[in-house]
């Protein structure tokens, strides 16, 4: 059952200089109960804006968000409709998302609704929620500062669970944690999603951790979703050059000393996106069509979509393997600038004064 559906969402901000900035352009996303969907991309790609639109923290300038079949209206000064409490949000930094001066239990109890609203019932429910996220019920009496980062993130998740949600949007919930705490919280999310048939939208810049957690993934670049598909398939055979670059940049903890691949250049200013395909200035496989026309996200293989002009093979294969038979593809790697390029800097790019 689909719990969240986003269709052709645009999120536009107006900068102080009145320039309109399209943070999200035509993004669609749907999440079922019990499903974990990963949303990945570099900082500035619009993934947090899309997440905020999903929960009504920003109003989309176009498109529609439906949660459990109802339209999600953006937050106003009036009380949030009760139905929307089943749509929760967890932030990246558990050091700033929890109130340092209130006991953990009180903060979790804030979210309780319905029958558990009675006093004795409340503290029992808070204890259950804490145990659900792997902490002891006694933690309710303590303050956030008495917990590590990983534990605080569990508390933030328990607080979201208090409202008996059907969907939680998590904005980089793992980014500020150590490897072991990251693994603990990632596994917790998988368990919670399965046991409570909870839909999760997991926003992350780290495709490696998303791969171990999410069933499906959407890859975002400069406001547009450029590829979607089952996580396993996207990882083993990315169709979009950007997805391929994200995977190649993941350092391998295998002791071989292999260097990760840097993606040259930077995410351009979203107020002035490149013409045609937004990724073309950084794409090693670009050809004449790319700067001319913007590719739409289209079905490519069963359950997969991609927005890229590169010809596809009969079976899913990454751009680097397809490149061999793409005569039109041009190389951008000339030898004089190769060291800059390998280190992720585009020598022609005017940095600094932009």
């Amino acid at each position: 059952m689909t719990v969240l559906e986003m269709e052709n969402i645009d999120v536009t901000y107006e900068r102080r200089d009145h320039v309109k900035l399209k943070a999200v352009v035509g993004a669609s996303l749907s999440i079922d109960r019990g499903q974990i969907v990963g949303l990945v991309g570099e900082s500035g790609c619009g993934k947090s804006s899309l997440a905020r639109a999903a929960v009504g923290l920003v109003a989309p300038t176009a498109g529609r968000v439906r949660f459990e079949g109802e339209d999600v209206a953006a937050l106003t000064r009036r009380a949030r409709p009760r139905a929307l409490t089943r749509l929760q949000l967890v932030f990246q930094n558990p050091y700033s998302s929890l109130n340092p001066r209130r006991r953990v239990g009180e903060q979790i109890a804030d979210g309780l609704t319905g029958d558990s609203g009675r006093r004795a019932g409340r503290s029992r429910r808070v204890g259950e929620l804490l145990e659900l996220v792997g902490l002891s019920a006694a933690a309710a009496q303590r303050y956030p500062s008495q917990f590590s980062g990983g534990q605080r993130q569990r508390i933030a998740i328990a607080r979201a669970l208090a409202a008996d949600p059907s969907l939680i949007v998590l904005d980089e919930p793992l980014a500020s944690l150590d490897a072991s705490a990251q693994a603990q919280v990632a596994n917790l999310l998988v368990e919670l999603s399965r046991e409570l048939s909870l839909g999760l939208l997991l926003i992350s810049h780290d495709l490696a951790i998303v791969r171990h957690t999410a069933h499906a993934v959407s890859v975002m670049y400069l406001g547009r979703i450029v590829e979607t598909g089952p996580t396993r398939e996207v990882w083993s055979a990315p169709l979009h050059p950007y997805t391929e670059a994200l995977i190649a940049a993941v350092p391998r903890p295998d002791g071989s000393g292999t260097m990760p691949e840097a993606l040259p250049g930077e995410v351009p200013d979203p107020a002035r996106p490149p013409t045609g395909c937004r990724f073309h200035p950084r794409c090693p496989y670009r050809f004449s069509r790319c700067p001319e026309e913007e590719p739409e996200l289209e079905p490519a293989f069963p359950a997969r979509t991609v927005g890229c002009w590169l010809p596809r093979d009969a079976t899913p294969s990454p751009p680097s393997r397809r490149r061999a038979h793409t005569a039109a593809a041009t190389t951008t790697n000339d030898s004089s600038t190769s060291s800059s390029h390998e280190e992720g800097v585009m020598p022609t790019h005017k940095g600094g004064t932009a």
Partner: protein
Amino acid sequence: MSSALLEVEGLRVRLPTREGPVTVVDGVDYAVQPAEVFGVAGESGSGKTMSVLALLGLLPPGGAADGHALFGGRDLLRLRRSELRAVCGKEIGIVFQDPMTSLHPMLSIGQQIGEPLRIHLGLSRSAARRQAAELLDAVRIPDPESALRAFPHQFSGGMRQRVAIAIALAGNPSLLIADEPTTALDVTVQAGIIRLLDRLRRERGLSVILITHDLGVMSSIADRIAVFYAGRVVELADRESVVKRPRHPYTRALLDSLPHPEAPADTPLVPIRGMPPAAGAFPAGCAYHPRCAYAVASCTTEVPALVREGDRLLACPVDPLRE
């Protein structure tokens, strides 16, 4: 190992807390060789950062260090503040995690790189400017001349970190200390910084102490890795030995908790049970024993010594992972 660039012996660090001073680094020895990337790995609270900040006199107020840290014929822990200041920034450069806070927001890039050049190298304003442009070029900042006039907020996170590295290189140091230099960056940008550090090591013969909790980053670039746990080194060896054939149960567990690109998808991650202990509450004996799957009775009482096992140093007498 007399050719070592830096030799740390018996380093102990104590920090003040409301409950009195606590030991956060408890008897650490290591040596950094010329042109090597020496990795210092461990979770938050393992003492990895304090063990390095102590060398530069950068401990928080009230912090105290003893032991020895021999660098260029001097003991850094015995230098006066003024003497240390001449070493810091000149012979030893430092790069921190967050280039947004380590750079001054109101000073131009040129002013910030120019300062160490004028102070440490005594260059004139114009000579400093030329040298600063060269440094920016060395860290691959496009169009260095206009970058000198720019301010930190005009750069992306990756470019700011490159600027921070350029500043650290200004005094032409032989040792660069990089504390979680890529943790705040996107993976795509992180890859570029890793490659930059590797090139600086090759081209300039720079030694790097790389402090990070990310064994993936470590595995890409470090020549040798010291694994910290609760203020002590538990394993120290070359990269391959540590990452491919870890012998300390903690090193093994830390590696198992990482998402592994080659592992089949949907395999659950294997976190270490429990949590790293807080400073001041390090368990007796081997501090890792409460979380260790192989702990025996003696682990709870005896502090394991770091002993040579072939070409590695290991602090685990049980040694359950020996082949």
